[in-house]
């Protein structure tokens, strides 16, 4: 059997593909973090929680929401549910969930996050950490920790044998969708007029305000957009990972490391680093699986030693 560096090619390419799928999620999430950080100067700790809410939103859109009356109130023999019916497919969820969760995000930004503008950055981190705890705790209470099933959409079930691995169609779609959305975002911010306002408002808010642009509204919309990106990732995740209250809790730490490696200043940087680290993780799973959980953090330590501002970062 032919091997590449001592590994059969199907194992190598298989894990690389899986790494690319994971990288799709890293890229979407770190992109959202970078967008929010650029505009609000806040590290959004609640990013994992909104990713989770995106997945739950997809679940609700498909199955409706059951709000059960506790069994001790409903009596022993019946379980009463107030059911808000809905049967919207995965495709609708992909469109609607980011809008709904983004709206919730904008609401939270207006009533809570806006109040700490101008304070030390630490408080933004602490506030969003608290928000994440509230959101995750609420979902855990309502739905338990072990998760709800979400079927792979009919059009994307099955898969193709690529020779080196059996690639499920849905996972291939995830990579494609992530690449399209990431580069569309990059294009809007770096190449359009709207984007130029955004970048200008980041650099010098008072000047942009003087031009008659409503900066607070822009900040709110930006936060909403960053959150919507995370929710989009959540919808993509729903069919392959279980829809679980803590699905974003661990992921966000890895994404933080991705952001530190890439440097927060750069939109393109966060996209490239996201995909790149997914692939590096996949490689690690082939050659030294025990280290796959820590490789991102090790790379982060090395980058910090060599280039403290991150690979694509500007000097602070």
């Amino acid at each position, binding site marked *: 059997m032919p091997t590449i560096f001592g590994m059969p090619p199907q194992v190598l390419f298989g894990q690389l593909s899986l790494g690319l799928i994971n990288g799709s999620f890293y890229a979407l999430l770190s992109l959202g973090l970078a967008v929010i950080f650029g505009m609000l100067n806040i590290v959004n700790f609640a990013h994992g929680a909104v990713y989770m809410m995106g997945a739950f939103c997809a679940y609700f859109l498909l199955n409706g929401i059951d709000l059960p009356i506790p069994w001790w109130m409903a009596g022993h023999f019946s379980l009463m549910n107030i059911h808000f019916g809905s049967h919207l497919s995965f495709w609708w969820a992909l469109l609607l969930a980011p809008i709904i969760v983004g709206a919730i995000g904008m609401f939270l930004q207006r009533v809570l996050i806006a109040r700490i503008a101008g304070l030390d950055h630490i408080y933004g981190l602490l506030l969003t950490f608290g928000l994440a705890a509230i959101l995750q705790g609420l979902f855990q209470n309502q739905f338990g920790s072990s998760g709800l099933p979400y079927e792979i959409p009919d059009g994307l079930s099955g898969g193709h044998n690529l020779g080196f691995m*059996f690639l499920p169609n849905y996972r291939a779609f995830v990579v494609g969708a992530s690449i399209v959305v990431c580069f569309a975002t990059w294009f809007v911010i770096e190449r359009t007029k709207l984007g130029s306002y955004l970048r200008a408002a980041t650099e010098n808010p008072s000047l942009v305000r003087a031009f008659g642009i409503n900066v607070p509204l822009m900040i709110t919309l930006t936060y909403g957009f960053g959150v919507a990106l995370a929710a989009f990732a959540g919808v993509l995740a729903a069919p*392959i990972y279980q829809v679980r209250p803590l699905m974003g809790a661990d992921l966000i730490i890895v994404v933080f490391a991705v952001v530190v490696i890439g440097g927060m200043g750069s939109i393109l940087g966060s996209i490239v680093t996201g995909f790149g680290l997914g692939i590096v993780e996949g490689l690690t799973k082939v050659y030294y699986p025990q280290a796959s959980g820590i490789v991102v953090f090790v790379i982060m330590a090395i980058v910090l030693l060599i280039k403290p501002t991150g690979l694509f970062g500007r000097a602070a």
Partner: protein
Amino acid sequence: MNYKIAGLAMAGLMSSVAFAPSALAADKTIVIGNVNDMSSLYADTGGIGSEVAAKMAIEDSGMEKKGWKISVISADHQNKPDVGATLTRQLIDEKHADVIIDTPNSGVALAVAAVVKEKNKVFIPSGAASAALTGAACTPNTVHWTYDTYELAHGTGGAITRAGGKSWFFLTADYAFGKALEADTTAVVKAEGGTVLGHDLHPLNTADFSSFLLQAQASKAQVIGLANAGGDTINSIKQAAEFGIIKGGQTIAPLLLFITDVNAMGLKVAQGLEFTSSFYWDMNDGTRAWAKRFQALDPAHHMPTQGQAGAYAGVLHYLKAVEKVGDPSDGAKVVAEMKALPTDDPLFGKGTVRIDGRVTHPAYLFKVKTPEESKYPWDYYKLVATIPADKAFRPLSESDCPLVKK
């Protein structure tokens, strides 16, 4: 200041702290602590359902009519051994718990067993699988009901290897239970002439099994043994289907499968799986009657799992022993009585509690029905083989439990 008096007062206070819980003579109050996973991957297989089962046992014992006060307290160990040990210590010290039941998650169960022994109370694990609980880590205070890793390994591993599944690859949950299950199954597979090609450890509560499954697929093993439980088992089976592993001809062997797992996966995914269990609700009139009573009381209205059935039988037998002893406070004494009394209940039939704390009862090899074969709700299993009580568990001659004299 009179130092002597101060010293005496101090000593008095110290002893009151140390001995407060066991000070009452002829204690007619029994507190049952259900140290369980109330919110995570074992919440459906144990959880609040085990409290329901324990309450049914209290009712059926008829002891409350004779003047005993019996209550159940549930606590969430979050699948963390440190939380489980602290909760147990606190239940015993502050709530005066006399017996701890169920405790799925072997890592937590081993921690709880140590605390219970130190406090001389009783521990009846019915949801924890590690055979070490009646092996190297056995105590005079532990009685292990329902399944253990030896039983599961010999039931499923033996049957599949004998049927021709000679090469195995394991996906193993990275804690006491998973490792024990893998080790026990490996021994059986090798004894039956099979080989083990490799294994992968995954953390508890893993969402994505794709990279593990890819390795299992690449190993070309005939059988992929799942040495995990609950949500982890469900996820690995579903994703194995997604990656075309089942269609590719490899057999998936879940070594521990609960009826609630089958319910969550649906028969379309689960059909054809073969596994070992100590209890199924639809075995005979006794189990059916009890299970329907349970289903009505269970908040989620699930049929009972084998762990919950074990919680019922264990509490029932415990209460019989306490009534005979007359006082629950000396745990080792109660357990000695539990070992002297033969067990008898509608769910597991007649059996005994061995010197190592192992309860013996028959084990069954089941196959999950196809959607067409299933005639009514929860009609999920068909019986393939029965393993008699004396063959189902590790023989005392192989035991490494210090209580077994050789």
